[in-house]
């Protein structure tokens, strides 16, 4: 079987998706990144290999997400794609008639506006991470409940309380205040969902032409409270697609499939064996000018594979060329 692998290495989670020749999802893996993108790419790759049936031939690999370049070098990716395009392509595969995509991940949230099947506008959170997965995780942890319980209990709210959602720090102190006042936890949880949705729509969604059908994906779409709050706020149904949490990886795999169909060369994929290799990362401060850029480098057996992080191109040329 011929297959295409998409990997989405985000700030909080790492996602893998394998599609077959007809672009159907064969298998997927969802792991916490835990600040160790290389380890997680290797671990995920191992799991994918175990889950795949025998005789699968990987014909193309694409990486996306904030660690897409790093993951791209490790994997020998055929395509390195930004997560905005990947998410749009993934969602449109399942819902070609979609006009708006809301994507809320671990640390960033996006809105993608689509008309007639092409992206016409997008937005991404800039200065504020309120409403993203990490904050919700943190609040669940503080209330000593799982994120799943958070999601269910938020739905049991009868009279949601108003929480200040402009800033996570103030949202948290506001929540504590409301707890101390004796409000029901369900009402506080759902009040938080509403506050975060308002924050999202006022920041990321500002000035965007939000039209139905609306697709909601990313890890936060697991949270039923947030789904309900979005529907209420927009006064419209939202669709949470199956496998919404790995949609970026699915989009990347779709893109590399298309790319390889036009290419005359085979895949650069380095094979499943790379999950056993010991990569080494390090960093140094460039002294060439007063900017003192922090250059990060990835090496294998003392040979530098790639470098990042400079304001100029001094260190960024590919070490292989």
């Amino acid at each position, binding site marked *: 079987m011929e297959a295409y692998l998409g990997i989405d290495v985000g700030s909080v989670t790492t996602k893998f998706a394998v599609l077959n020749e007809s672009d159907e999802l064969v298998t997927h893996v969802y792991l916490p990144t835990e600040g160790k993108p290389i380890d997680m790419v290797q671990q995920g790759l191992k799991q994918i290999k175990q889950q795949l049936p025998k005789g699968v031939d990987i014909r193309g690999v694409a990486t996306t997400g*904030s660690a897409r370049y790093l993951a791209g070098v490790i994997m020998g990716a055929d395509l390195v*794609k*930004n*997560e*905005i*395009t990947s998410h749009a392509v993934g969602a449109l595969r399942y819902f070609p008639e979609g006009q708006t995509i809301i994507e809320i991940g671990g640390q960033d949230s996006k809105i993608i506006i689509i008309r*007639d*099947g*092409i*992206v*016409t*506008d*997008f937005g*991404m959170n*800039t*200065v504020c991470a309120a409403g993203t997965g990490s904050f919700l995780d943190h609040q669940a942890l503080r209330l000593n409940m799982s994120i799943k319980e958070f999601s269910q209990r938020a739905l049991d709210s009868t009279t949601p309380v108003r929480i200040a959602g402009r800033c996570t720090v103030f949202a948290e102190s506001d929540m504590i205040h409301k707890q101390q006042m004796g409000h029901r936890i369900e009402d506080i949880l759902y009040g938080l969902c509403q506050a975060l949705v308002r924050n999202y729509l006022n920041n990321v969604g500002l*000035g965007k*032409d939000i039209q139905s059908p609306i697709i909601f994906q990313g890890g936060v779409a697991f949270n039923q409270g947030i789904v309900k709050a979005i529907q209420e706020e927009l006064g419209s149904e939202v669709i949470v697609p199956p496998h919404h949490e790995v949609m970026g990886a699915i989009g990347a795999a779709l893109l590399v499939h298309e790319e390889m169909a036009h290419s005359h060369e085979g895949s650069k994929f380095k094979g499943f064996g790379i999950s056993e290799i010991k990569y080494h990362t390090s960093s140094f401060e460039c002294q060439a*000018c*007063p*900017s*003192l*850029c922090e250059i990060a480098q990835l090496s294998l057996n003392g040979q530098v594979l790639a470098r990042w992080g400079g*304001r*100029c*191109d001094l260190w960024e*040329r590919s070490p292989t060329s």
Partner: protein
Amino acid sequence: MRIGMPHMGNLYIPFKALFQRLNIDFVIPPLNNQRTLSLGVRHSPEGMCIPFKLTLGNLIEATELGADTLLMPAGSGICRLGYYAKTQEQILHDLGYNIAMVSVGVSQRKLFGLLEMIKRLSNNAPWSKIISAFRFGLAKLNAMDRIERAVQKIRPVERIKGTANKLFAKAIKAIDQADDYNTLKKVQINCIDQLNQVTKVSKAQPLVVGIIGEFYVLLEPFSNLDVESELGKLGVEVRRTTFVSEWTKFSLFLNPLGMNEKDRIHKAALPYLKRDIGGDGWESVGEKVLHATEYDGLIHLAPFTCMPEIVAQNIMPSTKENIPVLTILCDEQIAKPGMLTRLEAFVDLLEHRRRAQSNSLRREHGSLSGH
């Protein structure tokens, strides 16, 4: 008296030529770098824009090199930048620097005001000498901008990324060192020749993106994280109306004669914004309208907290002239990976849009010709 002034792109080169020819003592602070920014941020109120912070950093670094007379643009009719000279003077005095601030009125009396100021700085040099030095500085400015326009065309199509930037840096150095018009001309011709000979990728038609927005962040690559070079690496051709040489041509020479290039831009903006709102906000709206059919997309650069550009940003989506616009807010918090993600996604958007448009054109054409 030793002169110091803030940076904006390579503008120090024409000023250096001018000062040298008039025997004015001056220092050039280090080009914008992380230290400049840190100094500026440390001593500025948090809500000030990136032009304020970087220029303050430059002025501090110039003072460290012995400058005691600092030049800073000022005047009414621009934006709060008009008060920056005064504010920065106060900050520098509070820091214990004993300096004199000379406000350069960019909006009043135009050319004559500028020449008068130079005359004062040059300890009353004869007018003939001042005009000749000014002309030479201007020639350097024009040469740099002509080369930069050529560089903008090569960046997206060069086979080895970074080639055009290297030639550009070499030419800037040579222009800086040129002592006469002849050498200057040679440098310019040589560089443009070399640029034309750069090996190119065979790509049919690169996407064309217009860069619009606030003057300083457009012209100081450090403040916009080198957005033009990054777009070049993505294979996108960049066009920009704002060049210092254009500005001097109009504001110093042609406007006083009643010719105003900006009339055209303002007229285009009229249905959506009827008056100047300070800074370059009016121009940003007008340029969006004008370029809607010319380019594939626009990148709108604005300093964070810039009122005129934020007004413009919020007017732009409602114009009937439709073109994708990506606004990038520049400040000390902006991070390159985040900007690159947005640029890459924007370029994908433009490519898909162009493909969809050519497909629908082909369909229309096909149905008309009966196929």
